[in-house]
C-alpha cells in the first residue's frame, strides 16, 4: 500500500514536468504580448520593449524556462506581470472561494444524485425511473450559465430569498458565507447530479442482477436492507470513479460559475490572467490544477481498497 502510494507520487513528477513544459511553451508560442497589455494602448514600441526587458521576456526561451523552473523547484511561483503581487499571494487569496464552491457542489451533487440513482434502479422502468433519467438528460444539455441566470432570476430577483451574487469569507460569518454559495453550488451541481445519478442507476441496476442479491433476499432481508447494505456498496466503485472525474471536471465549470456569480476565486483569476497574458499566474494556476487532479485520482484509487476488499495494491 505505502509502496503503491510512493510509486504513484513518484509517477506524478514526470507528469507535472511535462505539464510545466507544455504550458510554458504554449503561452509563449501563441500570439499576444504581455508587455503590450501592461504598457496600454498609448505606449510606443520603446516603452513596450523596456517592459519586456524588465519582465525577462527578452531573454531566449530556454533561459526563461530554466529561471522559472529553478524558482519553481524552490517553491517560488514568481511575480504576477499584471496584479503587482507574487503569484503565491494571488493564489492564497483566491483559493478559498473556489475550494468552498467545489466542496459544496460535490457534496450537494452526491447527496442528491446517489439516492436518485438508487431509487431509479430499484423502481426500474417505472415513472420514477423515467423521471430521473429525463432530468439527467436535461441536466446534461442545459449550459451552466443558463441554469445560473435562471436560478438567480427565480430565487434572487423574483423571490428575493438569496443574494444575487458575490462572496463572503467564512471568517465573516457562517450564514453570509453559506447564503452566497447556495445558488452557485446548485448551478454547478446540476450537471454532476445528472452524471452521478445516471451512473449510480446503471451500476446499482447491474448489481441487482447479481447472485448475492438473490442470496440476500433468500435470507429474508427487507428490500431496503438489500439495497443499502448489499447493492450500494458493491455498486460503489464506478460511482466513486465518476465522482472523481466530476471533481476534476469542476475546474472547468468553476470558471463560468464564478463569472456568473461574481465570485473572486481561481476560476475568475484564470480568466483575468489569460486576458492579461499574465504568464506566471497562468502557469502556476494550471500546475496547481494538475497537482489537484493527480491527487484526486490517487485518493479515488485508494478509496477502492476501502470499498472493495478484493482490490489491493
Amino acid at each position, binding site marked *: 500500500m505505502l509502496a503503491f502510494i510512493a510509486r504513484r507520487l513518484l509517477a506524478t513528477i514526470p507528469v507535472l514536468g511535462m505539464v510545466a513544459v507544455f504550458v510554458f511553451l504554449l503561452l509563449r508560442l501563441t500570439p499576444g504580448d504581455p508587455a503590450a497589455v501592461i504598457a496600454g494602448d498609448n505606449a510606443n514600441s520603446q516603452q513596450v520593449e523596456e517592459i519586456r526587458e524588465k519582465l525577462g521576456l527578452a531573454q531566449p526561451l530556454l533561459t526563461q524556462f530554466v529561471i522559472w523552473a529553478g524558482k519553481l523547484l524552490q517553491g517560488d511561483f514568481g511575480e504576477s506581470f499584471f496584479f503587482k503581487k507574487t503569484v503565491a499571494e494571488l493564489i492564497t487569496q483566491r483559493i478559498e472561494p473556489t475550494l468552498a464552491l467545489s466542496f459544496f457542489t460535490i457534496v450537494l451533487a452526491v447527496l442528491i444524485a446517489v439516492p436518485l440513482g438508487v431509487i431509479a434502479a430499484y423502481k426500474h422502468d417505472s415513472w420514477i425511473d423515467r423521471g430521473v433519467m429525463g432530468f439527467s438528460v436535461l441536466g446534461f444539455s442545459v449550459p451552466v450559465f443558463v441554469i445560473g441566470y435562471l436560478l438567480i432570476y427565480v430565487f434572487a430577483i423574483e423571490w428575493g430569498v438569496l443574494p444575487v451574487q458575490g462572496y463572503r469569507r467564512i471568517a465573516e460569518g457562517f450564514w453570509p458565507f453559506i447564503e452566497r454559495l447556495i445558488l452557485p453550488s446548485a448551478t454547478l451541481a446540476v450537471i454532476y447530479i445528472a452524471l452521478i445519478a445516471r451512473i449510480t442507476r446503471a451500476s446499482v441496476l447491474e448489481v441487482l442482477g447479481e447472485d*448475492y442479491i438473490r442470496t440476500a433476499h433468500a435470507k429474508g432481508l427487507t428490500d431496503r436492507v438489500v439495497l443499502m447494505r448489499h447493492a450500494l456498496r458493491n455498486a460503489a466503485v464506478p460511482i466513486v470513479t465518476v465522482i472523481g472525474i466530476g471533481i476534476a471536471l469542476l475546474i472547468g465549470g468553476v470558471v463560468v460559475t464564478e463569472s456568473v456569480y461574481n465570485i473572486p476565486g481561481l476560476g475568475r483569476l484564470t480568466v483575468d490572467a489569460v486576458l492579461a497574458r499574465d504568464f506566471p499566474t497562468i502557469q502556476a494556476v494550471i500546475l496547481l490544477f494538475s497537482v489537484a487532479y493527480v491527487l484526486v485520482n490517487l485518493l479515488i484509487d485508494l478509496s477502492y481498497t476501502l470499498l472493495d*476488499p478484493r482490490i489491493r495494491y
Partner: protein
Amino acid sequence: MTETPVLDISNLTVDLPPGADRPKAVEGVGFDVRPHEIVCLVGESGSGKSVIAQTVMGLLPKTLKPSAGKVMLQGEDVLTAGAARLRELRCTRMSMIFQEPMTALNPVMTCGDQIDEVLRTHTQHDEAERRRRIRAILAQVRLPEPDRMIAAYPHQLSGGQRQRIMIAMALVLEPALLIADEPTTALDVTTQAQILELIKEIQRSHATGVLFITHDFGVVAEISHRVAVMQWGRLVEFGPTREVLSRPQHAYTRMLISSVPSMTPRVRSRRADAALVLETKTLGKTYISGGWLGRPTTVRAAEQVSVEVRRGETLGIVGESGSGKSTVARCIARLIEPSDGAILLGGSEIAHMGTGALRPHRRRIQIVFQDPYRSLNPRRTVGESIIEGPTNYGMARAAAFARARELMQLVKLDPLSLDRYPHQFSGGQRQRICIARALAMEPELLIADEAVSALDVSVQAQVLALLDEIRRKLELAMLFITHDLRVAAQVCDRVAVMHQGRVVEYGEAAEIFTRPGHDYTKALLAAAPGRSWEFGAFQGA
C-alpha cells in the same frame, strides 16, 4: 415414513410471460419432501427445476406468476403468504444454497457478517450469543479456524470453503427445508464429494428435508432417497432413487440415464505407428507479477509437461481447476507463450516462434472452447464465423462457403442455416458450429477445452459422439481438456492427469481408470459421484 412432509407441492403451475418458448414454465407439478429425506429434482436446462425452487422461496422474477396449485411448507401455503411473512419464513423454516458460491456471497462483506446478518434479522440474540452460534455452525460445516473464517472475505476462501459458508448461513437457524440448487456443479470433483458428504451428514443430524436440484445422475445416485425427473416443465417421473435408476418408467428418464457417460473406459482400436502430430517437451509456464518497488510474485501454472499426440488419437488432459490443464492447452495453441520447454508440431518447434513466423502454423491447431454462448460473435452470421479463418488464409469466399456447407452437414446441422445468427441456435447446436468453425481450418490438431462441460447430458452425449466420429473420419489428433472423468473415460485413448501444474500420471486410459498409480488419481476416481452405479444397465427392460 408416515411423517408429514416438510414440503408438499401439488398441481403447481407457473406461467411464463407471453412470447416465451412455451406458455408455462412449470405445469401441474406435484411431489413432496419428508423430514430426514433428500429428494433430487433432476432435469436438463429449461426443464423448470429452478423455477420450482424459486417458487418455494418466493423468489420468482416478477415476470413469472404461479397460477395454480399449492406449495405447503409445514402445512402453510407459501403461494398465499404475503411478502413480510415470506421474509420471516426464509432462513427460519426454509433456506436455499446456490450453484456458484463465489457469486452467491457478497464480495465486500466478511463471511462472519453475512452469517450474522441472518441472526440479526431473525432473532433477538445479543452479540455474544450470535457469535457463539456462528462458531457452532462453522464447526458443524467442518470449517477450521472459525476466527479466520469469520473475518475472511469470500475471495480469500476456496470454492469448497465458500460453499460451506453458504451452507452455514442457510442452516444456522435450523430450517426444516433446505433447497440446494446445483450446489456442487461449480466445484471440483474432490470438493464436490466433500460437500455432498456434508449435506448428507447435516441432513441426518438435523431432520432437515432437502430438495436437491441437479442435472447430474452421478450426484443423484450418490445422495438422494427419492428422485423427481422434470422435462419441459412437467414432472415425468417420481419415485425412490434405486427404483428410478434401475427401472425407469418414462422414455425421457431412460434416455437421460443412458446418456450418462460410463466410468469404464472404452477401448478403441488405433494404429500404434500413426504419425506424431504434437509433442511437448518439459513445457512450462511461469507467471511473474509485481516488481518495481513491490515484491514480485511467481506462479508456476505448468511445469515439466511432456506429452504426445498421434494422428487419429485422443489425449485427455484431466485435472481440477487450477491444475494447469488449460494453461497447457493455451500454450500448445500458442495463445500464450510458454516460459520454457518445447512444442513440436509435426516437427516444427513453435514454442518460441514470433507472431509472423507463427502465422502459417496457426491453422494447424484449432480450439473449441467451453462456452458456446460466448465463443461465437453474436453480431455475425454463423456462416461468416466459419469462413473467416479460411478466407484469412487466402481461400476465395465462394469456395469457403461451399466448404462451410459441407462442414455443416458433417456436424449434422442444416447447411441452409449458415445465414442465421448464433442466438437462433441452441447450446448444443452452437457447439457444433464451433466445431465446424475449427474444422474449416483443416487443422492437424483439434483442442477441445472443456468443450462439452456446459452442455446438458443428452446433448453432451451427442456432441461427444460427433467429436469421435470426426476424429475417425478425418484421422484428427485431438487434445481433450476436461475435469469430467466420465467424459474422459469415453473419449480418450490416453490420459494425462494434472495436479498443481504437473502431470502426475500419464498413460493408456484403460490402464489409468482401472489401475490408477498415483494417489491423486486414486482420490480423483474415488470422488466421482455415482462411481459405483452403472448407468443405463436397466433391469427388467
